[in-house]
């Protein structure tokens, strides 16, 4: 309702009179130095196959644990400066890959930017039974292939002679369309997120933490929890990542 002034009124204008706001000296910011950035030969995203080169013969069980919990690979930046971070688990199929490839290819400038995949091409076969049949009759045939993505994994990386502001718009566009919650990040923002998490863990005023209760099995809580919760510490539930929890 009431908007607080950003600076006190009496600064420099106490006995002399009221302070009339006006523009001060223009601060000339030097443009960023991109001398150490090299663009690869093919700056655009590689085409991902729908089916791997050697299609799988054997049908695999569902193994949903490849969605569950935090990711152990591709959590840090490798070549680029900006990327899309997955904040939940899910499967990416060929349609998603095409969407990402075409959107980023359309919105980026191949002369100054480059993009790199951080997820492999679809490798996991997903079976589907034909529509309208009753249960039973064995496992269905392989329908399509997907890639499993866990939370905390980078999907694509973008780099080159560009600022986050230029890249953020289309990265958020792509992130919205993914099957799991995702966010556009840069190296700085990712570091800041990690630091904030650590700070939250340190300055938590609640003496009762999920980890403490579950490791000591207070009140017999482990009866209602899974052994995976020892690892996930209340931050992961199924494929979801609970960001607000510590």
């Amino acid at each position, binding site marked *: 309702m009431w908007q607080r002034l950003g600076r006190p009124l009496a600064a420099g204008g106490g006995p002399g009179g009221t302070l009339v706001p006006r523009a001060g000296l223009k601060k000339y910011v030097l443009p960023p130095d991109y001398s150490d950035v090299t663009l690869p030969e093919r700056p655009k995203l590689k085409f991902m196959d729908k089916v791997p080169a050697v299609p799988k013969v054997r049908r695999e069980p569902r193994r949903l644990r490849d969605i569950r919990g935090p990711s152990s690979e591709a959590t840090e930046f490798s070549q680029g400066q900006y990327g899309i971070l997955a904040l939940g688990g899910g499967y990416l199929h060929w349609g998603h890959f095409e969407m990402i490839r075409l959107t980023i290819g359309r919105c980026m400038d191949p002369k100054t930017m480059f993009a790199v995949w951080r997820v492999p091409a679809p490798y996991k076969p997903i079976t589907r039974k034909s529509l309208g049949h009753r249960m039973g009759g064995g496992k269905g045939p392989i329908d399509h292939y997907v890639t499993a993505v866990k939370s905390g994994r980078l999907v694509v990386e973008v780099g080159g002679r560009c600022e986050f502001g230029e890249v953020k718009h289309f990265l958020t566009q792509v992130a919205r369309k993914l099957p799991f919650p995702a966010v556009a990040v840069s190296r700085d923002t990712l570091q800041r997120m990690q630091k904030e998490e650590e700070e939250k863990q340190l300055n938590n005023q609640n003496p009762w933490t999920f980890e403490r209760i579950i490791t000591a099995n207070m009140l017999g809580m482990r009866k209602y*929890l899974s052994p995976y919760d020892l690892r996930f510490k209340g931050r992961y539930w199924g494929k979801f990542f609970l960001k607000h929890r510590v």
Partner: protein
Amino acid sequence: MAALSGGGPWRRGWLPALQLVRHGSKAVTRHWKAMHFQRQKLMAVTEYLAPKPLIPEQCLPPKKEVVKEAEEDNGYVRLLRRLVAEAFRDNRMIVVCQYNPMPNEDMLLMRHYLRKHNIEVKFFLNEIVRPVLSQSKYKNLLPLFVGRNILLVSPETKVKEMLRVLKGVPQINLLGACIDDTILSKKGVENFAKLPSLEASQGQTVGALALLPSQTCSLLQRGSVHLTALLDEYIKQLQAGAEATAGSPTKPALSQSSEAH
């Protein structure tokens, strides 16, 4: 009815820690799987509590994170400060005026008239002038540098002409001046303008001092001058008397009367 999954619980190797499942939904689902109530309670108890300071941040004055050293590293800022220092050093008269927005042509005319009297109009940003002044001897001028202002600087002190020009420009108001390292207010400047020029006052002083010696000379000569005047008068009267006796015999009365004098 479906309390137990088919033949499961009574098999060998059944872990009593595992809860009896009713509907068989897996751990990882597309939808948000409903948590057991105990687990919900645990999640509610172990939520994050942010640290709360005794005095909320809104009640404290805002923290200013201004880094002034970075500004001085800026070459442009250093240049401007040098210009300000030069202006204060090289000019005898520095006048601070309030600047209100005015039409450009009027501004140009004013600058032209002032330039004729060798007065320059300078614009400096307050944020540059203030640190320069606070470290020099002009600390008492600091309260003037608030709001929009301009500096009129000149190596000479032609205050009368300047005031005449400024009178014709209502948007420029005189706030204060520093003439010959003397800080003057608006009234002080007006009084300064009414003073006679340096040459005139010098001449006056010299005249006042030389008055007494000049009088001494005339004082000393007064006696002899008076005597000379009287003798001249007497000679004139004798001559006048001699003419009168040569003209008629009635005239000796006049000469006698003049002799009696």
